[in-house]
């Protein structure tokens, strides 16, 4: 009993390495039994599907390329119907509260870009019919930068932007 407890503690302290080895061993033994088709680490099926994640757009290193990847070359038009709420000065770049709302009709997505971040696209929200075209979240900002809100409405893209000053960056060590 005591033995058992202490070994469990050890495995927790030594981090993932031991667990990985154990899982590997289990997977190996299952494969040996001809059960390779049964995923040994299968989890409860979740709805969130990583395959739909817009990898291309998130990988772009400039604002223009990210916009191109998101909207297939459509250029955004500045619009006062896009309401971007961000602070003038963010004391902590690691947590900058930003919200976007719009009065435009038929909104299909809202995206937020931080121009000076290593990867400008921060978040993209497809908007379902029945969901209000409004979203609030918190983003990291490497340094003082323009923040751009993009709203796809009908077959056009509209934007609003704001300069946010950052005193302590959120992407450095």
């Amino acid at each position, binding site marked *: 009993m005591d033995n058992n407890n202490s070994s469990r503690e050890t495995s927790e302290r030594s981090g993932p390495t031991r667990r990985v080895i154990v899982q590997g061993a289990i997977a190996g033994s299952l494969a040996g039994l001809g059960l390779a088709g049964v995923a040994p680490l299968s989890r409860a099926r979740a709805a969130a599907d*990583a395959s739909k994640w817009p990898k291309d757009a998130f990988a772009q290193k400039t604002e223009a390329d990210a916009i191109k990847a998101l909207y297939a070359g459509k250029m955004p038009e500045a619009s006062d119907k896009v309401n971007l709420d961000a602070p003038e000065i963010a004391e902590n770049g690691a947590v900058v509260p930003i919200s976007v709302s719009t009065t435009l009709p038929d909104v299909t997505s809202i995206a937020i870009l931080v121009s000076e971040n290593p990867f400008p696209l921060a*978040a993209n*929200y497809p908007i379902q019919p029945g969901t209000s075209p409004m979203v609030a979240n918190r983003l990291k900002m490497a340094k003082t930068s323009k923040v751009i809100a993009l709203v796809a409405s009908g077959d056009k893209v509209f934007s609003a932007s704001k300069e946010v000053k950052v005193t302590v960056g959120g992407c450095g*060590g």
Partner: protein
Amino acid sequence: MASTIRIRAVSSGDTTEVQALVQHPMDSGFVKDAQGNLIPPHYIQVVEFEHAGKAVFTAYWGPAVSKDPYIKFSFKGAQKGDDLTVSWVDNKGATDSLVGKIQ
């Protein structure tokens, strides 16, 4: 283990306002640890909110979303007492989900 997700969904009239917090490091891949080694990127990519079997809201996130992310949105068509399912998946394939009640 306690869930990584906390959700608060409040219905008022036709609209349900949802606020959710997820516990996650959201490592961007640009930050160094105490030894000066880069911490590899580890962040949530997709968050999905479902009501009555239908997706009501999806978030695609990059590494620029803050640690322990917060999200707020609202949607129409739900009633008090309905279930709202939240699930997320990160870039390492880890997932979690939670069913919350609309208040």
